[in-house]
């Protein structure tokens, strides 16, 4: 097990380093200068500003210090845009918001998706089955940036049930639409994957044996069939997490939640390089970690995988 984790780490750590280095040099290659204004600034002032942001040192040293600060002190440095805020401040403000509805969406997508998939498989060719199949076809072509406007159209403009944006300190009515918009396509995919793998498991010999020895139906499903049927679902959770992280950029922007995605797009439009860099690395690290966790989880559930 430990060897397996180490092997996975051997891919994850270089990936993270590549991500940091690539993003860092992309930022350095950017034309223009974040401090260039309309006024001509005396060289001595510029020198002071550069020294303040550590830009007077050679680039490799800047990179080394940046990596050191990020990895060991979790410090992403000052924002180029807002003089009195650090990138950490911006992240600390936005991340809890994104994390809140992201976590809800993740849980909702997994639970509803698995439940619907199991029902669809057990009651094959029933209405639940058709519903889940129909959903998964629809979800493939309706990305969350299409889902979000449609939800607002129906629930905010027509029914007037829920607010179409804002965060309001995480009041439940503000959380519902972002969670639904983010979760829909993934819950449909989870349902589809669960259904097909459940169908395969239900057709296997040991399930027939379990039924033949007289176990009640629910015990066969939850005691015998569910765990092996969930294997492909677990391996899909990695991509789900990635989708949630990137999808949150759209959701934040559309619902004006004030989450980290909104900060990302704002700093992208304002050329606030240090904030873009910080958020890219943070979300990238989260993605890589999530994939690592899914890999380990998968190996733990599936006894056939050699560790």
């Amino acid at each position, binding site marked *: 097990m430990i060897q397996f984790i180490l092997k996975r780490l051997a891919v994850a750590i270089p990936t993270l380093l590549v991500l940091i280095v690539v993003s860092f040099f992309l930022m350095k290659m950017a034309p223009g200068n974040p401090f260039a204004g309309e006024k001509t600034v005396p060289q001595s002032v510029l020198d002071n500003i550069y020294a303040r942001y550590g830009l007077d040192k050679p680039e490799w040293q800047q990179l080394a210090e940046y990596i050191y600060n990020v990895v060991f002190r979790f410090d992403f440095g000052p924002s180029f845009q807002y003089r009195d805020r650090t990138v950490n401040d911006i992240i600390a403000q936005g991340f809890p918001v994104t994390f809140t509805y992201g976590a809800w969406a993740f849980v909702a997508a997994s639970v509803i998706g698995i439940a619907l998939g199991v029902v669809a498989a057990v009651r094959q060719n029933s209405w639940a089955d058709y519903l889940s199949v129909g959903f998964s076809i629809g979800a493939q072509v309706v990305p969350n940036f299409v889902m979000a*406007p449609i939800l607002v159209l129906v629930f905010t403009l027509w029914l007037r049930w829920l607010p179409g944006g804002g965060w309001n300190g995480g009041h439940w009515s503000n959380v519902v639409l972002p969670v639904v918009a983010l979760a829909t396509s993934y819950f449909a995919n989870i349902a589809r994957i669960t259904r097909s793998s459940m169908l395969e498991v239900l057709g296997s010999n040991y399930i027939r044996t379990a039924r033949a020895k007289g176990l009640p139906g629910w015990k066969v499903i939850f005691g015998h069939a569910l765990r092996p049927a969930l294997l492909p679902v677990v391996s899909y959770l990695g991509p789900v997490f990635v989708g949630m992280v990137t999808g949150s950029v759209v959701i934040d922007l559309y619902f004006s939640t004030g989450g980290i995605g909104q900060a990302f797009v704002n700093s992208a439009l304002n050329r606030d390089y240090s904030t*873009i860099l910080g958020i890219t690395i943070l979300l990238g690290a989260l993605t890589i970690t999530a994939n690592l966790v899914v890999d380990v989880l998968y190996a733990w559930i599936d006894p056939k995988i050699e560790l």
Partner: protein
Amino acid sequence: MLADNRIKTVTSLEAAPAELPTKGRSLWRDAGRRFMANKAALTSLIVLIGVVLFTIVGPYFAKWSIEKVDWSVVGNVLHAGAPSLETGHYFGTDEVGRDLYSRVIQGTQISLLVGLVGSAIAVIVGTIYGAVAGYFGGRLDSAMMRLVDIIYSIPYMFILILLLIVFGRSFIMLFVGIGLISWLGMSRVVRGQTLTLKNREFVEAAIATGSKPRDVIFRHIVPNLLGIVAIYATLLVPEMILLESFISFLGLGVQEPNTSLGALISEGAQTMQYGTYWQLAFPLVFFITILFTFFFVGDGLRDALDPKDR
């Protein structure tokens, strides 16, 4: 089907030699027949061709260019800018009074172009990369595939956005960015397929007759990969379109006055609260139609070409 042919050959033995070569059942002809029998895929293909033709022919019927502002509409978009044949705004206008018909056509063109270019890069780079890695194997293979693993697990969406910010938002940057990542999945698929192909007799025969590795790869392995490459490339198109639309939705894609379906959907979504639903509806219909049809065509191709289902 097979039985029919056999009976026919037996009964008309004299005519057979002349007839047989034209009736040869190649992989592609079989696949074509299976594809034609698949109603969903065939309908999708026809609809898709219709959309493509529309983007080619449509501009000749447009009365307004993509950037010309119709001043008679400005300030009263809800009523004057609605879809109408009289004003020449067949799809209505957008929020600042530009013709949506022309803009939707251009958006569709760009989305299709992004999909095709991304897919083409994947076919060229991915096939060669995967075939080389799979054919030579060993240390070269693991180094090449490790590189793919690493690039694959970088959240490319952010790198792509970073690229667009750093080098400016342009078509070329968009294509470069999409091209950078589109070939990764393809190279994995091709490598896997090459691994099974390279131990087959015809490849051994080619090597035994003294063919150079380059000839073996391009003459014997790559042609046998075309089926799976075609399937994967078709399924890649909607993915690339989604990726571009996502970036355009964030306002980081192509620059005004040019537009893409993602940008139009984003604009329409922001203004629908004023009652101008057509600004969301028209781009959305085109977007969903293109994605749907590509998925079904890709699915149909897979059913038609996948040897496992035969």
